[in-house]
């Protein structure tokens, strides 16, 4: 469990993090979202005791980070793939971390194996690709078999197999009852991984809800229906006070998440349904709607202006 209480960080005149209060609970994957410059990295650094909060504090299992004895056994973090001395081998990098927290050497071999780096364990880290560096960072996070794990942009540089692996890893860590806190810019990835979301914008908390609630509250959802008896169904729905629209291709659409109700009505009136699918907007759409006001670098429209042409 991570508890963040009134966390504030000021750099000169700029307020990077503004009175954040939230909890990250065990047993689920909690996603941490926000546009660039929203204060995600600063918040994560303060959680690890790397940056000092201007006000407020963070508790890891009830304790402040600097009061943890052997912190790697409580919380493992992947901050960025570059937190490694390039001249050191993957093995020695992990070994020095392990020793600093009294973790046995055998565990180093284990995590190297777990992330698939055993074959290159003796190679210097500077020869690693972005994806391999990421795996090394994840190995470091797993080293102390901690109850809390934190990942900042974990899929950066991984290939599809790696992305798949890290996603399942995070889910299974949460299923074991651990606390998993992960930041990412990839909404499509997040939608597949996280159960709960903490969203910040310009340093302030924008949302702290379950994934399903977040999407429901911040986007448009509807039910798509296909039936050989559209006229009858329309009548039945109309009677029940449910508004349905004819959409293209012989389908009907009903606003909101009323699939169960429609299913019951159809069964009651013996209407055959060939499709009854709740459609939800994507997490991306919901996120865009929520954070529309707090983005730092806006690009102009999609097409390049053609003010300049050859000839």
């Amino acid at each position, binding site marked *: 469990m991570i508890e963040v209480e009134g966390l504030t960080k000021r750099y000169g005149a700029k307020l990077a993090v503004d009175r954040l209060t939230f909890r990250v609970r065990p047993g689920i994957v909690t996603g941490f979202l926000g546009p660039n410059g929203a204060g995600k990295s600063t918040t994560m650094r303060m959680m690890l*005791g790397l940056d*000092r909060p201007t006000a407020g504090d963070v508790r890891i299992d009830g304790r402040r980070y600097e009061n943890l004895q052997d912190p790697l056994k409580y919380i493992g973090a992947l901050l960025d793939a570059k*937190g490694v*001395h*390039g*001249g*050191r081998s993957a093995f020695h990098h992990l*070994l020095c971390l392990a020793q600093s927290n009294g973790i046995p050497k055998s565990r180093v071999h284990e995590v190297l194996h777990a992330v698939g780096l055993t074959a290159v364990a003796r190679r210097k880290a500077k020869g690693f690709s972005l994806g391999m560096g990421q795996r090394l960072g994840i190995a470091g996070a797993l080293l102390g078999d901690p109850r809390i794990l934190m990942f900042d942009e974990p899929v950066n540089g991984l290939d599809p197999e790696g992305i798949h692996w890290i996603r399942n890893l995070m889910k299974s860590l949460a299923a074991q009852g651990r606390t998993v806190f992960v930041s990412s810019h990839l909404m499509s990835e997040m939608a597949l991984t996280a159960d709960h979301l903490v969203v910040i914008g310009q340093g302030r908390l924008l949302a702290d809800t379950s994934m399903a609630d977040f999407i429901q509250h911040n986007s448009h959802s509807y039910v798509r229906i296909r039936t050989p008896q559209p006229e009858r169904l329309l009548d039945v729905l109309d009677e029940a006070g449910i508004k349905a629209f004819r959409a293209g291709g012989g389908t009907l659409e009903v606003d909101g998440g009323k699939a169960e109700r429609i299913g019951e009505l159809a069964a009651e009136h013996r209407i055959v349904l060939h499709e009854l699918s709740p459609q939800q907007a994507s997490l991306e759409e919901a996120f865009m709607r929520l954070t529309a006001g707090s983005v730092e670098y806006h690009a102009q429209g999609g097409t390049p202006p053609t003010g300049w042409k050859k000839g």
Partner: protein
Amino acid sequence: MATTQVVRSEWTKIRSVASTVWTLSLAAVVTVALGMLISLLSRNEWDSMSTRDQLFFDPTYTSFAGMSLGQLAMIVFGVLVVSNEYSTGMIRTSLAAVPQRGTFLFGKIAVATGLAFAVGLATSFLAFFVGQTTLGEHSASIGDEGVLRAVIGGGLYMTLIAVFSMAVATMLRGPMLSLGILMPFFFLISGILAAVSATEKIGRFLPDQAGNKIMQVVPPVDDDTPYGPWGGLGIMVLWVVAALLGAYAVIKKRDA
């Protein structure tokens, strides 16, 4: 408990990067080789030296002549031990693993200091014996008065230079900035101050000049230095302690 863990960890760190090996071996090789060269020159030039120079000739100090260059490699060693953490981003990983920043800093410096002392002392003894063998009939013996003190002092001097560099690098973080300040400080400013009579007296209190005193067995002509060999080393230690306090204050407060 935690301290021994940090020390073990820092030992792994220091022995697993190539820069440790090449900076320390460069320090040893340069010091010994240059000392030998100067000793050889002194022996060949002996007959053309004035009687006064012959009288005040310090064979021990002569064999340490290579330290003026060798200490630069020690500075590089000290700077890289610390600033590599910053330039690679490793510092965040390290401080997340050891949030007690005082323990982290002093554990790191303790390990690097121990290693620097071992190499420094070995270098000092080697430079002495190689130098004396080269000097032949004009050599000093390790049993002579003050000689053993000077040889051990040579090792201490190199160690303190490295520690001072570590402390400065902790305050400045980047390797380029740290070397850019330390190199001219020891190589130019100290020399310039010593060369100009008006500033000569100030120059004596700089860490390198004060620390140098420990390696002298025969005091130079007209020596009016207000401190003895151990007094000089004491001044150097004060510099080092001040730098360490600064480093501690900075790392305690700063965002990683």
